[in-house]
């Protein structure tokens, strides 16, 4: 229980700092920290993302940074894709899911490095 709270807090701090969503952090944290399977970690990560995105969206809206119409269109179409994605995650072999997730976070890592190198030193 303590591990889960610490993981959440730490992942939240990094997400707030870097603007990289919670999920990229939640999934490895849940598999490595709590010993969940890749599939269960992904599903549980999605539940954890909801409050984070809700508070984040509310704060951004207060600053006038949310195009609500576009957000709802994206969200509704995304919801259809999400059902397909969840079905796919359950259909493919677990090993394939692990390998493709590894490739995905490696891609995110390269994006982070590129952005960091572009940034002017403070």
């Amino acid at each position: 229980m303590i591990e889960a709270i610490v993981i959440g807090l730490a992942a939240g701090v990094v997400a707030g700092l870097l603007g990289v969503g919670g999920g990229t952090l939640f999934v490895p944290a849940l598999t490595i920290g709590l010993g969940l399977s890749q599939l269960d970690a992904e599903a549980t990560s999605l539940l954890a993302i909801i409050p984070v995105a809700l508070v984040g969206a509310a704060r951004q809206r207060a600053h006038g940074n949310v195009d609500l119409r576009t957000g709802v269109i994206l969200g509704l179409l995304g919801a259809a894709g999400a059902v397909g994605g969840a079905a796919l995650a359950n259909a493919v072999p677990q090993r394939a899911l692990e390998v493709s997730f590894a490739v995905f976070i490696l891609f995110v890592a390269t994006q982070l490095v590129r952005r960091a190198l572009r940034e002017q030193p403070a």
Partner: protein
Amino acid sequence: MALMARRRTLTLAAIGTAAGLFSGLFGVGGGVLMVPLLVLWCGFGERRATGTSLAAIVLIAGVATAAHGAYGNVHVQDGVLVGVPAVAGVLIGTELQQRISTKAISLIFAALLVVAAADLLVP
């Protein structure tokens, strides 16, 4: 004008569907995909893309959780125990972002992701 509006709707449809697929398949919000595409294809500023993507993620993650829940994959207690403190973490992180350089943190986090990927790839 009508053609442009239609084109825009089709673009949003493509972005939303792709982000949703990613979300359901990988357990992420899909912002990693939506933010750059909103900037590149729809001419959004970085902040507006981030804010709009967060609003979309509330819906996407909600439906993706329900879909995974139907398969019995969601650990509800763990999700709540991780998600609620994460909200506090994000508020702290956003506050810190204004004061410190995120360059070092980006690199450390990238290294962590490489370690996590290696952990998955090497059985």
